[in-house]
């Protein structure tokens, strides 16, 4: 009994450490039936494995079979461009002579865009599972693989979490090829490179790196490649699985790798010299390196006038500040620094909190938690009821809590303010919540001094973070004056002459500054590799 426990633990440890068995590198056999049996065995007699037998050549001809996975292939293409030509060939029964049969079929018969010869069983199986069609012929040691992918994907729509008012409304989908195509459409430049690898032992998910050659720092690309190679994981179901592996600071609450679902955003980042990571099966595209100030930028900023954009951007910083600090400030003022409140306010506040049973710290945390619960419930609830719940919850319950004397009116106001402002900067929401809670607790313990301590700790932490070699707080902390043009303000587009210094330094100049520049005649040409 005891030993059973020990044994299980040891076995668990052993299994954890055991390296995965390498896949066998077996070739296809010339025997058709053996091959088919092998495929069937590997796939476990799966009902979506379609085996279409046929015969090539006159008389009995050569036995062959087409294998495909139903649902993954474009059936029309398979019927029209593979089966029919093969059938015709069978009818015509031309002599093939010394020509290699497979080559003949590939070059002259089948009308598919991408054709391959595959000698290895595992590879063929892989390709089959990706939606390719495999032609096995009796007597041949290689199979012909036709690219026939045609599954259903979501159509291109604007991502819900990244809506903007003006500008393109396209979003990435779950299909990698669609996504790479969307990027290509934004950047029609031969410098745009993709590198694909498969990650995830069981899921074998295709992961693609994208970068703009000539603009990107080659060392950055190498670093990303290295880190991706290190990923040893069972499954990749979403980009975030990768992110937690390759992140610089996996324990930090601040994201050092950011994501986007929008092609225009991804393209813009590529043009600054960043690297994008696309994962098949998810519309989330990650970009590195990531700076803290990126969370405050939105594509909307560039589609409106720069006056408005600057104001809105400052508003975002203010909102973030409010979202994180307002409960803490309120707690500190009301619990420790009452002398700082203007007298009439203090009297009102006093009257409002008189009779409430809890200290303000507790009130704040309680109502904050309550709000988070509301928010989470609002997401999970079926759509028509969802918005009702939020409004009902907020107004009615808040109001009732005040009337019942459980919390004070000002507390509700502060929580409401916090709630609204926390949505303005979506990418720092998670960090924001943690910070907010920490600061509130610190404020409850040591007042404004506690908040100061927390703030300094956050500042030191942020200052020590790097994202793929770039300090996280640039261009604020190692202050780079030239880069500040897109941080707090948004200078006019014609003034954005340079790329961010630490990221795009291979090619710092975007274009000359000024709005009445004459476009020079192509020298190396806009299609050259000068980006």
């Amino acid at each position: 009994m005891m030993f059973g426990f020990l044994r299980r633990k040891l076995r668990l440890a052993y299994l954890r450490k055991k390296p995965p068995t390498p896949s066998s590198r077996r070739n296809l056999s010339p025997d058709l039936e053996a091959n088919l049996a092998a495929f069937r065995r590997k796939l476990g007699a799966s009902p979506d494995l379609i085996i279409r037998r046929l015969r090539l050549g006159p008389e009995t001809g050569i036995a062959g079979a087409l294998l495909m996975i139903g649902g993954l292939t474009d059936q029309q293409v398979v019927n029209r461009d593979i089966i029919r030509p093969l059938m015709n060939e069978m009818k015509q029964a031309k002599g093939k002579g010394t020509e290699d049969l497979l080559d003949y079929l590939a070059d002259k018969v089948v009308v598919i865009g991408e054709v391959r010869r595959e000698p290895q069983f595992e590879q063929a199986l892989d390709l089959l599972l990706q939606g390719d069609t495999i032609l096995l012929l009796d007597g041949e040691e290689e199979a012909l693989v036709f690219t026939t992918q045609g599954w259903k994907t979501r159509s291109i729509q604007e991502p819900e979490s990244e809506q903007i008012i003006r500008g393109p409304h396209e979003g990435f989908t779950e299909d990698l090829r669609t996504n790479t195509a969307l990027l290509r459409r934004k950047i029609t430049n031969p410098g745009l490179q993709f590198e694909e690898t498969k990650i995830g032992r069981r899921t074998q998910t295709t992961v693609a790196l994208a970068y703009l050659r000539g603009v990107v720092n080659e060392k950055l690309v190498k670093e990303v490649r290295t880190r991706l190679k290190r990923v040893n994981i069972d499954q990749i179901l979403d980009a975030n699985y990768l992110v937690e592996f390759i992140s610089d600071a996996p324990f930090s609450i601040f994201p050092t790798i950011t994501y986007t679902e929008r092609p225009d955003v991804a393209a813009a980042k590529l043009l600054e010299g960043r690297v994008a990571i696309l994962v098949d099966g998810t519309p989330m595209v990650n970009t590195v390196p990531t700076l803290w100030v990126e969370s405050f930028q939105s594509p909307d900023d560039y589609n409106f006038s720069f006056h408005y954009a600057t104001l809105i951007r400052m508003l975002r910083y203010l909102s973030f500040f409010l979202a994180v600090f307002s409960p803490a400030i309120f707690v500190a003022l009301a619990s420790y620094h009452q002398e700082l409140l203007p007298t009439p306010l203090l009297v009102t506040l006093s009257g409002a909190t008189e009779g409430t049973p809890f200290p303000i710290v507790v009130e704040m945390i309680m109502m904050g938690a309550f709000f988070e619960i509301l928010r989470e419930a609002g997401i999970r609830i079926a759509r028509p009821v969802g918005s009702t719940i939020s409004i009902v919850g907020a107004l009615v319950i808040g109001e009732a809590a005040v009337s019942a004397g459980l919390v004070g009116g000002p507390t509700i106001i502060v929580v409401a303010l916090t709630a609204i402002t926390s949505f303005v900067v979506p990418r720092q929401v998670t960090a924001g919540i943690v910070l907010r809670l920490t600061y509130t607790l610190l404020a409850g313990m040591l007042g404004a001094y506690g908040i100061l301590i927390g703030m300094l700790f956050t500042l030191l932490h942020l200052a020590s973070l790097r994202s793929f070699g770039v300090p996280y707080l640039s261009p604020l902390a190692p202050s780079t004056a030239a880069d500040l043009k897109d941080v707090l303000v948004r200078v006019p587009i014609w003034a954005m002459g340079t790329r961010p210094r630490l990221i795009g330094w291979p090619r710092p100049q975007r274009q000359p500054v000024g709005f009445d520049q004459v476009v020079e005649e192509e020298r190396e040409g806009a299609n050259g590799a000068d980006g």
Partner: protein
Amino acid sequence: MDQGKISPWQLTLLVMSFTIGNWIVLPAGTEAWQNLWLIMILALGEGLVFAYLSLLLFRRFPGKTLFEIFALVFGSVGGKFLSLLFLWFFLQTGAAALMIFVTLLKTTIFTATPDMALLVPWMLIVIYGCRRGIEVIARSNEPLIIATIVLLFISVLLVLNILDPANLLPLFNLPLSDALWISVGIAVFPFGQNVLFLMILPRVNRRQKVTGAVLKGMIGAGGYLLLIQFLTVGVVGKVGEIYVFPSYEFYRMIDIARVLTRLELIPLLNFMTMGFIKIMLCLYALAVGTAQVFNLRTYRPLVFPLGALLLIAAFRFAPSISQHLRFVEEVNPYFGLFYSVFLPLLTLGVALVRGWLRRRVTS
């Protein structure tokens, strides 16, 4: 030791924060009240001269920290002895600064809180920052010092309606000898304390810019402190003489249209951030210095125990504000002169002499 690199601009900002540090809450030389800002100009000049001496030392031994220079000039034993002396200086400076801020907190806000509850979080943050290296300290400092400067400008605007230039008179009612003595006191505290930076200068990535950066920082800080003193006297008047923390009282008096009033917490917190930077730098110098004295590979593991030491030292050096005031008035000028002027000068002198001797031998 620490691989981080800082830029000359970051150095300038660090020097500024360090100099502003704790002087801003508890200035030296308040006996000269209205004349203080004039005396400060003098003190700044003296301080710049002292700093230049130390910078010459760095020029002569580029890329070496102060302790390494000691070892080169005075030999291994002599060097270690002087290094130990300086370790004491770093400890003293940091502990005094720490005690000032804690006293400030206790007098103004936290009357009932025990010292430890205030000191421990402070030191934890300082230790955290120190361990991260000088780069992180420099980066964190940038927004803090910018905020301080912005606050100054806002303060100027806010006090325009209560500033009474008549408060600044009379000038020159102090005998010259007194004024000189006070100016020396200010020249060593806070300006002279910048000798600490000799431990950090090797980390700057552009060597030639170092001298300019340090001097610029001192001038910037001097200007800032001057302006604050000027405003404080103008607003608070003669009453400021009796106050322990005049600048704090200065901020308590701001009142615009009955709305913008009671704002003193913000400058208070802001001054504290300057104190943080100063103490972080002191601990950093202490840790790096200790590591050099004992020939250690890295200074990191020392930060925590030395931080604890600093905390305890704060208790012991200045258990009461009266003792601290007395120290600043009576002891500090000599103490500071010894470290900021005498020792660097001595080192420079010996180095020059040795170099001259060596040249004579080889020629």
